[in-house]
């Protein structure tokens, strides 16, 4: 009787007081895949790296919601021949099934022209896969002569 009473109670205490699990590392491999697919102008491949209900918040444009619309956005704004991109991660925070990333980007234009900016992303893990759930970016200076911008 004593054993039956004490064991479940001890188990309850242990379960409730376990330290918070060590956070996972930021999914850098997926972030690297984003850059590879961006430079291949692979809109479908890029869209697969976003959650089904992701939102992209581009500068000087309305929010783009959902994976299909995000694929169309990438196809339109990053056609073959577009600038390449370099991304530097500045800060990552991982919280269970969500992760935050702040970074900077540089666009490498065909003529060698370079423009840069910054971005913030919210990542979400579902079905065991990390994907981008929210993404906002902007340039560090107005685009010369136009409002054109490129995603980060």
């Amino acid at each position, binding site marked *: 009787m004593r054993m039956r009473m004490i064991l479940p109670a001890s188990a309850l205490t242990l379960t409730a*007081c376990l330290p918070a699990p060590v956070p996972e590392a930021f999914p850098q491999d997926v972030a690297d895949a984003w850059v590879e697919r961006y430079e291949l102008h692979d809109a479908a491949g890029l869209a697969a790296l976003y959650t089904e209900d992701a939102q992209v*918040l581009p500068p000087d444009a309305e*929010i783009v919601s959902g994976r299909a619309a995000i694929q169309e956005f990438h196809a339109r704004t990053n056609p073959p021949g577009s600038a390449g991109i370099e991304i530097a991660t500045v800060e990552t925070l991982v919280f*269970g099934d969500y992760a*935050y990333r702040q970074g900077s980007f540089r666009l490498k234009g065909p003529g060698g022209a370079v423009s840069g900016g910054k971005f*913030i992303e919210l990542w979400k893990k579902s079905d065991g896969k990390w994907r981008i759930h929210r993404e906002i970016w902007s*340039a560090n200076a107005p685009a010369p002569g136009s409002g054109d911008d490129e995603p980060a």
Partner: protein
Amino acid sequence: MNRTHLASWAILVALAAAGCERAGTPEAFPQAAADGWLAAFNSGDTTGLALMYSDDAEVLPPDEPIVSGHAAIEEFWKSYDPGQVRIAVSEVETRRLGDYWFREGTYSAIIPEEGEPRIGKFIELWVKSGGAWLLYRHMWSPNAPPPAELPASAPG
């Protein structure tokens, strides 16, 4: 079950309940702080506005480099003509992330000399510091390029 067993149970259950912070009631998004930001901006109180950011906060404005530090953030917001320009936010979504709050929404900036408000979207990360919820990261962009005749630093 005798009294000793009952007492053991009570102690263990109490320990289980109290021993872990995560078991507490979830804290709500600090709406009063977010409302305070709007009130400070709309009344032109840039000093108060700057105090709503953490010491290590960064403001990430469109078409400008990152602004960090209370003094630089205060100076930055002065260029947006607070008190004359009025901002409202809507369609807000909040999510608790560990010790942070993530907030996303849309804004409307009414500029006296313009007929139509400028609409845009924002993302914020809030952090609790010294018992107060403060902005840690603040980023936004307009839904359309600013009118050509106005300076690029105009709100929107």
